[in-house]
């Protein structure tokens, strides 16, 4: 894996930001994520959490792409732009991924399942739902009703899907696994109209995006079919082509990261 994106002729190389496993976030990384989510929850305009959650579902129009050929590219663009909104508040923060194949013992990662964090409400546990985003008027906050952890997808199931060489077959089978995790989580996550209001949605989709990335690495000659590449991903200012190479979007996936200072230039 390249540690940095390929610089353009007039660009200095930029270090990629890493999306990390939600189970392996350091205390500081988790605090940054919570601070960024909290900051966007305080904004009522089109930079805020409620706005971004509403793009996926209610209020109308429901813009997400499900059960169609742009499922993976559309959600990659969606996560990228939401992550940018978070980084406007906490530079360098990234969306973690929830590896549901490895978490059969605990189900939802503790970063998202604890009601409180450091004595305060954990912004990853739940979220308010704006009045125009509710499927029913009483749905003021997100809820979950998770199944037994053993019913989450297994590594073997994911491995079988990753073996597909054809993009559409891979995407269709991955979307079924994705749908199953929504169903497993239950509550707000179990309906397209409200799913993105749950902070866990973003970690789940980060995992889906990661699996697409792993598939891309494994099948370098089997990408998105050419006729789709110039399709727009409304309402985002991006096409499918813009989503193909994640290092061009400035991020990469890592199980964990650690850094130490160098000698400097003094």
């Amino acid at each position, binding site marked *: 894996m390249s540690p940095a994106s390929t610089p353009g002729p007039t660009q200095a190389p930029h270090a990629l930001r890493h999306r990390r496993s939600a189970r392996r976030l350091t205390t500081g990384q988790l605090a940054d994520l919570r601070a960024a989510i909290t900051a966007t929850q305080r904004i009522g305009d089109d930079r805020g959490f409620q706005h971004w959650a509403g793009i996926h579902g*209610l209020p*109308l129009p*429901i813009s997400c*792409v*499900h*059960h*169609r050929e742009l499922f993976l590219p559309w959600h990659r663009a969606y996560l990228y732009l939401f992550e940018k909104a978070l980084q406007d508040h906490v530079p360098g923060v990234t969306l973690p991924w929830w590896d549901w194949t490895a978490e059969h013992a605990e189900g939802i990662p503790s970063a998202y399942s604890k009601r409180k964090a450091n004595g305060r409400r954990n912004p990853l546990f739940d979220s308010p739902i704006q009045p125009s985003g509710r*499927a029913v008027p009483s749905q003021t906050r997100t809820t979950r*009703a998770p199944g037994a952890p053993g019913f989450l997808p297994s590594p073997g199931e994911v491995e*079988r899907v990753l073996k597909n060489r054809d993009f559409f*077959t891979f995407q*269709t*089978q991955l979307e*079924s*696994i*994705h*749908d*199953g995790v*929504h*169903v497993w989580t*239950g509550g707000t996550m*179990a*309906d*397209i*109209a*409200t*799913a993105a209001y749950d902070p866990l949605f973003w970690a789940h989709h980060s995992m889906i995006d990661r699996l697409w990335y792993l598939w891309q690495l494994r099948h370098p000659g089997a990408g998105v079919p050419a006729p789709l590449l110039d399709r727009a991903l*409304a309402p985002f200012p991006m096409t499918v082509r813009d989503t193909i190479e994640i290092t061009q979007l400035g991020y990469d996936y890592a199980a964990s990261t650690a850094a130490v200072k160098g000698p400097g230039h003094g």
Partner: protein
Amino acid sequence: MVERFTSDPIELPPADRPFQRSDLLFYGLDHSGASFEARVFMDPRGVGGEADSRHRAYVGSFFILGHGGCFGDVGHCDIPTDRDPFDLRPAHQLEPALRILTVTDAVRNLLERKVEAAKVTVTAHTAARTPSDVLAFERIRLATYA
């Protein structure tokens, strides 16, 4: 919409023709309502009763994340039947879905039992207290790949 469906017998590939993989494809799936798990069974006589994933005819599940109902005015969730070829707007949100379930081992097991055709039974399972009659699709195809 139904909670359970059993197909007519679907022909299995000839036992003497080797294949690498076999998929069941479900075309035209509705996803307008509640989310659900669809458990799929293949058996020469079909599967009745409260069969679950431990049943010997169980071949796998697929999942549908549903829209959970219609939130627009009258007609909002009607899928247009005719589409202008110059209409560049995205497809309707409720255009039917496809699901592909890989059933290679199950088909091999049926062939070893000298089965030539099997009925496909699909049962829908939603969250507790949610009606399960959410199953609607147009066609099932069994495809094998050499």
